[in-house]
């Protein structure tokens, strides 16, 4: 499209040039419609349509737009259109409609006009054409005005300076409900297993399991009674005890008592046989 625009642009430039260069010539021979053959195409491309061409003819011939000499205008217009038809047929449709309209107006002008205002209200046959020409000329000038307004990107730029990244990276936020939803998604996808039997009570058991493991990781082993804090209340004691039992059941923690009535110890589970077998460094 820009190619077309550029071409039209160039053509417009050309016609201004031509009009200026040829202007004197035409003023000497006002009725001569000779157009250099090479220029015709350029000139025609520069017109935005029949109204534009008519306006140009009117102005070139210094015709009064409000009192157009229809025969002169029609003759000149039709000569252009005929030339145009030889060159660029596909342009002609709208121009031909206009030609027909001009001829019609011209012929109506030739009819004797009633002395008194008659049934057709004495409307000048040119009225509609003049209205359209004026409206078009106004649009044309307005368009030129718009084109001259400063335009963002062409005549000025808006600003946007750099905003340095924050030193602290933004971290995703997670709400507790997101975890619930995530769990729901797992359930929906996976086949059920006993894993999913988790309620409030069991969750606190698991929390204590983590607590005990963390504690034993630091301490290695400790007295059984050290794992319980009576200050936390009875339910906490029960949950801690359940947690310990679960740890033992899952073979994460061993409870050992070397002899009856000696202190009971809790320690991280070690399976001597397994440990030896795998010779895994701790």
């Amino acid at each position, binding site marked *: 499209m820009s190619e077309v625009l550029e071409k039209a642009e160039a053509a417009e430039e050309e016609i201004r040039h031509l009009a200026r260069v040829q202007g004197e010539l035409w003023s000497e021979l006002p009725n001569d419609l000779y157009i250099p053959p090479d220029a015709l195409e350029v000139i025609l491309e520069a017109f935005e349509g029949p109204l534009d061409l008519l306006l140009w003819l009117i102005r070139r011939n210094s015709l009064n737009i409000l009192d157009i000499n229809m025969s002169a205008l029609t003759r000149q217009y039709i000569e252009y259109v005929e030339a145009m038809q030889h060159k660029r047929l596909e342009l002609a449709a709208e121009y031909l409609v206009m030609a027909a309209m001009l001829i019609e107006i011209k012929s109506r002008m030739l009819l004797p006009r009633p002395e008194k205002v008659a049934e057709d209200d004495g409307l000048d046959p040119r009225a509609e054409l003049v209205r359209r020409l*004026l409206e078009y000329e106004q*649009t044309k000038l307005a368009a030129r005005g718009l084109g001259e307004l400063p335009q963002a990107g062409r005549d000025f730029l808006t600003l946007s300076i750099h905003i340095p990244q924050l030193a602290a990276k933004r971290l995703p936020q997670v709400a507790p409900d997101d975890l619930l939803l995530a769990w729901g998604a797992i359930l929906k996808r996976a086949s059920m297993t006993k894993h999913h039997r988790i309620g409030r009570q069991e969750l606190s058991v698991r929390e204590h399991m983590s607590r005990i493991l963390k504690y034993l990781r630091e301490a290695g082993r400790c007295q059984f009674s050290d794992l319980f804090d009576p200050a936390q209340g009875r339910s906490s004691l029960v949950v801690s005890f359940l947690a310990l039992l679960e740890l033992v059941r899952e073979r994460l923690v061993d409870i050992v008592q070397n002899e009856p009535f000696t202190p009971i110890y809790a320690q991280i589970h070690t399976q001597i046989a397994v440990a030896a077998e795998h010779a895994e460094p701790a």
Partner: protein
Amino acid sequence: MQNPLNLDEVKRVLEAVLLSSGGALTLAELKRVFEVELGNDFLRRALEGLKSDWRGRAVELVLVADGWRFQTRPDVQPYLDRLNPEKPPRYSRAVLETLAVIAYRQPVTRGDVEDIRGVAVNSQIVRALEERGWIEVVGHKEVPGRPALFATTKQFLSDLNLRALSELPPLPELARDLIPQESLEEGAVASSS
């Protein structure tokens, strides 16, 4: 972070915000920047102050259709062009005339544009203007075919440095008033004025 309450500190923040925003900001958006609620008058005073602080520089603070923004002055454009030789194309007469009809007579259908210009409107022209964000369909005319009604956008005003349609250059006084239908008969009289 302390809340800025004095005019200078507000101006300092507004300057940074407007320079980095990449587009115009409305008064409401600028208000949101501050933790404390600032009055419109106070904010406007700060903006006007900032505007006059920048007077004479190659960048200016302007109020356009979609708010306040900093922009370069046209006189430095030649320098900027040397840095970025690629410019948006100049629009052809066909594009500008189509735009002019839409801008001055909106809302209009494509048929209205064609009536006024006297030629068919290439659909590429309409699309180009839509893609530029300058015109948009604002409805449909309730006639057979329900043709789209076009109007210009805020972006159009903003890109042309205007606050409102009323700031468009006035239409050249030519038609209508000059030629009431009746007086066409005495066309010569009207034209002699």
